């Protein structure tokens, strides 16, 4: 096996760190945008007026994950060329589905009795949404965002292929030169980044949960 | 009826010193219980949650294996038969019914016959018969799926399924619990009517004492795994064994008794006065009707007496005073 511990240490502490920040950006930016898009749409789809669009919209989100990410990046090529931007767009599209799906599932699982009681107390639709439905579905939605974060962190490795930088560069270098240390180091950092973002999201979730629900 | 020796033809189900301790518990769920259930009777197990009634029921078809003691069905020790075979000969109805959602009602009802490899046309015929018996439209219902049925309909389908191979014994665990009281009342009445025809040996579990009094030929009261009292509803009401049973029955024991006492048992001779009063308001009840009925008639017609008839012949009267005395006598030993 092509593995030497020294070179692994070198890979971990010398070769990889420059790419950490790039990779984090490649995860957080698409995640943020995807959440900003998928979450509101998911919420909208649970409103009676828009319920009939659910199948079609979810179909679009589903396509975003069905089409291989590489292809998505490639399809945007003629419009944005290669590089950072198309990679970001592709990753954002890829990140949409888990968030949308979990938002839908979380909101649907709020028991009708609770909503009924709130309505009976005189809360407006908007108040019910903000103070009842969203807090109660928060954990499911967050779980969707976390899933999306992990998927994005992994898929972001492909961004390096199209000039998008990130930890993928280290991994591809490892493949091209047959050096497992590089592959391992790159992978490890991606896992660390994914874990860190997961923790961050849990922290945010904790902050967002009203104290009486903890 | 002569009760001969143990294991006689009339003892359909017999429990001897049956007990059950679940793993990781010290207190037995069922504590050395013995009793018999005679053929053709409905025996109701009643008691608070955790008293062991469901556990005993499920030991009879070995869904729970007894830790000790023996259970005999029709003289055979159930531990000596293969469990699956045993269960195919016992009808089993549970509260949540448990119809297979991915099969039609027809397929559900015909499940055990199919397991026993009956020929298809015999199964179909039997399914149609059964749906009819439980009050469902055979042609309509057979091809529907469970989700298309109401709670009451599903319950009936569950009973039909249990009757499929005409098992001599049926075990029923709160079978009418999942429906509202009105539907429950109807289901109970129809079931009792059905039982008149088929005369099965039935073990029925409920936590509702009123259901027990209504449905049971015999009632077995259980508490914390022990048998507290066994007897007919009349025996329970007139002669409760201890405070626990009294509490279970409730304060209206006397009135409940009226439901079970026939008018003829409190019959008094008519006098000319009573004859006149009764004729004026034309308040009559039949001799075999419950005394409670007499009260209803009295209240409706604002009368103190009713006449008791057998057929068209008036044989006596019953007065409010007499009823009051009877209730006091019963409740007297509070």
């Amino acid at each position, binding site marked *: 096996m092509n593995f030497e511990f020294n070179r692994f240490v070198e890979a971990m502490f010398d070769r990889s760190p420059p790419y950490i920040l790039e990779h984090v950006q490649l995860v957080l930016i698409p995640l943020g945008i995807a959440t900003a898009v998928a979450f509101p749409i998911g919420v909208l789809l649970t409103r009676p007026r828009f319920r009939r669009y659910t199948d079609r919209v979810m179909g679009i989100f589903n396509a975003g994950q069905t*089409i291989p990410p590489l*292809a998505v990046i490639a399809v945007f*090529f003629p419009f944005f060329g290669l590089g950072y931007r198309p990679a970001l767009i592709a990753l954002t599209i890829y990140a949409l589905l888990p968030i949308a799906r979990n938002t839908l599932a979380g909101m649907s699982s709020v028991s009708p009795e609770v909503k009924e009681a709130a309505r009976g107390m005189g809360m407006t639709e908007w108040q019910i949404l903000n103070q009842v439905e969203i807090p109660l579905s928060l954990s499911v939605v967050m779980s969707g965002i976390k899933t999306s974060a992990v998927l994005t962190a992994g898929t972001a490795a*492909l961004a390096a292929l199209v000039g998008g930088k990130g930890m993928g560069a280290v991994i591809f270098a490892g493949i091209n030169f047959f050096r497992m240390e590089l592959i391992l180091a790159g992978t490890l950092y991606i896992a660390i980044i994914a874990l860190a973002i997961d923790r961050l999201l849990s922290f945010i979730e904790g902050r967002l949960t009203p104290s009486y629900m903890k | 009826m002569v009760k001969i020796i143990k294991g006689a033809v009339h003892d359909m189900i017999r429990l001897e010193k049956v007990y059950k301790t679940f793993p990781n518990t010290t207190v037995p769920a069922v504590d050395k219980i013995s009793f018999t259930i005679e053929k053709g009777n409905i025996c109701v197990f009643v008691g608070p949650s955790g008293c062991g009634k469901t556990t005993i029921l499920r030991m009879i078809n070995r869904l729970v294996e007894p830790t000790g003691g023996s259970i005999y069905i029709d003289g055979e020790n159930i531990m000596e038969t293969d469990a699956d075979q045993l*269960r195919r000969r016992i009808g089993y109805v549970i509260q949540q019914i448990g119809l297979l959602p991915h099969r039609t009602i027809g397929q559900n009802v015909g499940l055990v016959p199919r397991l026993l490899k009956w020929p298809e046309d015999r199964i179909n015929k039997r399914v149609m018969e059964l749906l009819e018996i439980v009050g469902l439209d055979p042609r309509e219902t057979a091809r529907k799926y469970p989700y298309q049925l109401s709670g009451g309909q599903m319950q009936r389908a569950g009973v039909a399924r249990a009757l499929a191979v005409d098992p001599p014994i049926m075990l029923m665990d709160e079978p009418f619990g999942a429906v509202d009281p009105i539907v429950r009342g109807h289901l109970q009445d129809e079931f009792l009517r059905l039982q008149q025809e088929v005369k099965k040996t039935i073990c029925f579990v409920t936590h509702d004492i009123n259901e027990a009094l209504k449905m049971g030929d015999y009632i077995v009261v259980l508490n914390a795994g022990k048998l507290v009292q066994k007897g007919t509803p009349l025996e329970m009401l007139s002669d409760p064994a201890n405070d626990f049973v009294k509490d279970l029955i409730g304060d209206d024991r006397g009135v409940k008794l009226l439901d079970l006492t026939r008018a003829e048992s409190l019959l008094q001779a008519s006098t000319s006065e009573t004859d006149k009063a009764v004729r004026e308001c034309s308040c009559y009840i039949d001799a075999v009707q419950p005394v409670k009925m007499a009260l209803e008639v009295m209240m409706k017609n604002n009368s103190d007496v009713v006449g008791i008839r057998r057929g068209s012949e008036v044989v006596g009267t019953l007065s409010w005073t007499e009823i009051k005395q009877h209730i006091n006598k019963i409740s007297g030993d509070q």
Partner: protein
Amino acid sequence: MEVILNVINFILNNSSRILEYTINHFSLVFTVLGFSLVLWITVGLLISKYDRYAGSVIGLANIIFVIPSISLFGIFVTIPQLGLGRKSAALALILYAMMPLVRNVYRGVKSVDQSVLESGRGMGMSDTEILFQIQIPMAWPVVFAGIRVTAVMITGMATVATFIGERNLGRLIHHGITRGNEDIIIAGAVVVSLIALMLDFILGKVEKKLTSPGLRQSG
């Protein structure tokens, strides 16, 4: 637009190569699916019976799933016994299939209503009869959803296997990128996307057909 014409042109001119790539792609996908279904459905059934292992097995599947596909491909490639090409790709893909399949089999089996199992046992169904007449039909929709997700996922991930020597549809895209030729990139992307979408669509139809009408309403 000119781009569309060029793309169509390219596809038509290179149809034999594209066909070769497509066949390779699917032979990889079906090989992987074949092994994965047998292996992971069995594992899923086992952990639904032996609950105490469920947590660790699903945990393991999750950890594997988190590893970027390119990493796993790369790691296997550097192992001499595997090297470039099909063996590494297949092994990695089979490992990725673990998560959706095992998880869905477990969830599907566990989701079967207890009262239906109870009434089945009470009627005298043997363990085998319960497995085949109750558990499998009732777990099937969830299981098949898992199979569908896995099939589409594997198809997508297989494109990345281009980088470790597989001659499949990902290669079109790669060629385009390395040569800076727009048309090839788009052609590759379009073909792959269409195939993935079609697969998902077909499997969706199959899923509907195979689910009992009595189950579609529940859950």
